[in-house]
């Protein structure tokens, strides 16, 4: 649907990889920029940007360039960028990678609030414990193919964790004990 691409993008909030942020902008400038790109007025975008920085405890670094942010700060800023226009669908790629415990708790809480107000959250993660705690439905992709899909209870049979299921299905690695010196 290339002709509707812009309209569709407006309804989606993507949490970008932290390396996709514009390093030479400040956190406030970046959020304001993203807000304006989603059609918010300059004043509205600036107001929301300030509030989001405060929410994610980044208000102490308002004038700091993103280049000087830590990985966790960049992740939180990415999350803020996804929220600024109140999207209906969130796409998150490894959202909790490199985020400290407080930040992760905050982000999870926000995502759960968004789900309560009717938004859909679509997240990818290699940390299956996070998936187990947050998701209603799970799809497992292996080597680019969708190999399993369903509700959490359907996939976790007999009290297995998702990690157990995944390892049972796909383990092809070498046993470390076979390497003498390791």
């Amino acid at each position: 649907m290339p002709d509707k691409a812009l309209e569709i993008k407006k309804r989606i909030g993507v949490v970008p990889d932290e390396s996709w942020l514009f390093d030479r902008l400040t956190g406030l400038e970046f959020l304001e920029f993203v807000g304006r790109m989603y059609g918010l007025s300059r004043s509205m975008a600036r107001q929301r940007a300030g509030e989001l920085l405060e929410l994610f405890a980044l208000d102490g670094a308002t004038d700091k360039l993103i280049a000087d942010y830590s990985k966790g700060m960049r992740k939180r800023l990415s999350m803020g960028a996804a929220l600024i226009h109140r999207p209906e669908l969130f796409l998150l790629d490894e959202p909790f990678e490199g985020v400290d415990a407080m930040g992760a708790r905050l982000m999870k809480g926000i995502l759960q609030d968004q789900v309560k107000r009717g938004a859909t959250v679509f997240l990818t993660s290699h940390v299956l414990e996070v998936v187990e705690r947050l998701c209603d439905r799970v799809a497992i992709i292996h080597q680019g193919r969708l190999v399993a899909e369903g509700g959490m209870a359907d996939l976790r049979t007999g009290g297995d964790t998702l990690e157990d299921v995944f390892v049972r299905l796909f383990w092809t690695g070498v046993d470390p004990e076979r390497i003498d010196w390791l």
Partner: protein
Amino acid sequence: MLRLPGSSLLRVVASFLPLALWYGIWGLLSALAYFFLSSPGNARLFPVALPVGLMFLVFYWQLGPLLTSLPGASLDLRRLSIYPVPVGQLFVAEVLLRFIAAPELPLLLAAVGIGLMVNPSLNARTAPAALAMFALFNACLAAGLRYPLQRWAGGRHFHQAVALILILMVALPQVVLATNFRLPVGRWILMEQPGWWLCTATARASLGCDLTSAFVCLAVWLVAAYYFGHWQFSQSICRDVRASPDYRPRMAKFGGVVATLAGLVSVLFPDRLAALVEKELCSLARTPRFRVVFMMAFSFGVMVFLPMALHAGRESGRDPFHDYLTIICAYALLLLADVVFWNVFGLDNNAAQMYFLLPCSTRYILLAKNLAAITFVVLETTLVVVVWKLIRMPASAGSVAQAYAVTLCLTIYLLSAGNLSSVRLPYGVKPERATSAVSSGRVRAFLLLIYPLISVPVVLAFVARYAFDTQAAFWMVLGFAACLGVAVYRLAMESAIKWIAHHREEMLKRLTASSGPAGV
């Protein structure tokens, strides 16, 4: 769709051509040096000419990479520092890379050495040894200076000013030559260099005069360069920018000068486009490479052309300065082109992907980058005019108008070609590396072919003025060139948009590619 050279043969030719031209020029210089130095009739000039020539070589070897933004291969110390390799070995590798990065200089020195040796009126058997020590001195010094220079150029305020002064020193030979060595510094270079001075000692050792004292001086210089280079190199390895005591988080006041300028510019455009333009202006102004080039354009550019303008002023009775302002502005445009035209996504690196997540069209993205470029070009031209007036050079309203008009007309063509090269030959660049070129080797090859082509419509305006001996002809042809430029720009923009639509992934992949431990 417009097509760039696409076949592999054309690519090879395009890559080879600038190298051939560059080394051809140095080969020619080396041949001239050989013929000059091997002629017995010139021998009486050598005690004066050789130290002067060697001094210019020292300038070029040490500061040339900073000036030309072609630093050549070097070790990536940050990556290598985690491995247990002795610093001494890394330093030796870096010294060797300083030779490889500037092979034209050993070539020239070899020609000098052979020329002196075959000169029958000299007993210059020691020339190869003396020149080898001179070359090693320069390589050790360059290995030590390289990283501090990069840091300074990428740093803030004081350090950046030091880097700029060093860059301006590269223009010194031009000034000295243009003033026929009448300035004190010129007289010093020509006649008053002491015997222990590196270049004089090398010349004396090469010409077979006072061999013992000359070689002792040279050895002292070499040992000093080795220890200085090794010390600075070790410091660079140990230095973690974030842990250094002078490190402060970079702050950028939203209400700063650039942000204010960005706000003013963006009042003229719809909000999404305005946001993109503001983002571009702020990002560029905070990029060390851009800042260095921007400052060079109105300082170094004026300094390089000033002696020629003064010379023309003495020779000609007609308004000789009329075109020099235009030439300086065009030169400034050339310097800026690397950062604002040819690889507009390069400084964004991975972040270029962000543009395609946001609900904005490719046309807007390119247009915003072009508008930011035009803003900086106008600002740069204004600064050149201001500097020109500050040093009390004559600038009539006509010459100022001509400078703006020609610069803007050239800008239209540069934007057209730049949009195409930016999407077809993108290249990820680290913004903090102030001395790195922003465009890739292939883009530079493309530029070598495209620059003369781009200049043709503007050159025709000057030809028209010469042919009809009237300014009206100049303005008419320039007006036509501008209209043609707008048409070419639109065509190039459509072509770039189509290319992105079909090759976005390829483009992003190129932008995110990273280099190994020995990067260029």
